[in-house]
């Protein structure tokens, strides 16, 4: 589907120099010194590498005709992440390199959209928020609440996150997967 670069949005899948890319950031603006542009961050679906490109807002861009299916995370096997369709039990594998920055939020049975192009899984739309259990937390020191309103804890996947002092081992937390920050207790 042909579109204008001015309509690019985060999460779209497009062709760039004849290769498939995911748009991870798109900022459309008119700089003071020239005509309107779109600054995009593009992630290659082949290599997982990210690059930046500035389009003129009226440049044509080819959007890929993708289909998204809701699937569950099963397990990671070396360079591949295995997902399953809970209705048909179909399994697909997605390269780890496409989800490298999100691996710490991946827990079994987590549901997300796997994106297909011509029956091949090319990417994943990760949920904005996930629930994770606290695997390890030190008790906060009483009386020190003013200078240190936060403490680090380790989650079940090994990721470290800063949380309020009341959080204890075994608590379930809601984590924002974009910023990696604590949102609330789940």
């Amino acid at each position: 589907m042909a579109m204008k670069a001015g309509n690019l949005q985060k999460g779209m899948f497009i062709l760039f120099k004849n290769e498939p890319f995911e748009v991870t950031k798109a900022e459309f603006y008119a700089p003071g010194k020239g005509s309107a542009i779109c600054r995009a961050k593009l992630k290659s679906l082949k290599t997982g590498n990210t690059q930046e490109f500035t389009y003129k807002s009226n440049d044509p861009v080819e959007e890929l005709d993708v289909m998204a299916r809701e699937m569950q995370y099963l397990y990671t096997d070396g360079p591949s992440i295995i997902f399953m369709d809970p209705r048909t039990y179909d399994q697909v594998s997605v390269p780890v390199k496409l989800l490298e920055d999100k691996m710490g939020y991946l827990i079994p049975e987590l549901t997300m959209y796997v994106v297909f192009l011509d029956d091949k899984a090319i990417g994943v739309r990760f949920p904005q928020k996930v629930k994770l259990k606290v695997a390890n937390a030190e008790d906060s020191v009483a009386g020190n609440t003013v200078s240190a309103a936060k403490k680090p804890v380790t989650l079940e996947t090994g990721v470290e996150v800063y949380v309020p002092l009341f959080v204890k081992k075994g608590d379930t937390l809601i984590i924002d997967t974009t910023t990696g920050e604590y949102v609330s207790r789940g």
Partner: protein
Amino acid sequence: MKIWQRLQQHPERFHPFFIREQVISAIRAHFTSQGFHEVETPKLLPQPSTEPFLEVFETQLKFADGSSSRAFLPTSPEFALKKLLAAGLGSCFEICKSFRNGEGRSSKHNPEFTILEWYHTPGDYLTVMDDTKKLFQAIHHAVFPQSKDLTLKYQGKIYDLSSPWERISVAEAFQTYAGIDTDTLLSKTRLVSALTKKGYHTNKKTTWEEAFNQIMFNEVEPHLGQKKPTFLYDYPTSQAALAQKKKSDPRFAERFEFFLAGFELGNAFSELADAKEQRERCEHDLEERRTLGKTTYGLDEDFLTALKSGFPPTGGSAMGVDRIAALFADVPNIQDVLFFPIDDLFPPKTA
């Protein structure tokens, strides 16, 4: 959640705002110590300046007798400050709000933003390069008084603010980073065909300005300000409406921008003092505004009268203060150093 609510929950997030405070005091202290006058100029004007690509905010000024007048918020304080220079004030600066409409939402723009403009007289763009360096070093001393060197950590990378800074001319940069020689750079046909050869999208309507900026944004800017601040200087004259042409090569004008850590931080000129040439360039800009479908208005004749009355040799610069604050506070977006960014006041409409 609004920023003030987040701050209520996470008082440690006040930190970038406190850095912003220190940056602004340091700017003020630096220029005052150098003998610059700090001035205030109007934020409600009968005619804003003439830059073709900047859209303005327009309102109506109403009088008690029922009459009214078109009124505009300034895109920068430039024309007003230049009138004061013509009046004989001497070197001066202003830190104020400026307004640019229709820019879109971006991590480096806010429609209402804080600008620093200073004018150094007698001086030119080289004087202002020196001012820029000293200003940044002074801000560094103020924000990191314990620091033994002039390194700045930003988003995981280390930058060095010590002298000398990198300098490259626009012509050298196009040659080095994009393989484009000066004759190609300055010719519309040749530049557009170079763009096509490089695989960019072009068509019959592609302008020289679009081709210039495509190469600038994609091939030149990513190399600038990666370790030290970089001055990119001597722009093609069409890209410098308020700057003096170079005496040695009038195809280029005495303008520089400077870059650090992915930010374009400042834009400076040897200020054009010739009233006749300034009128021609302003009228050309206003004509281009009409072509581009931007709000149109008359020329600020008072500004040209001021230039005609005698304008001292001056170097001037404009800088985005929000960007400088974001840089020293080590936050990725200028919205992180604004208590009330535009997205909080006017949230995006969700589809």
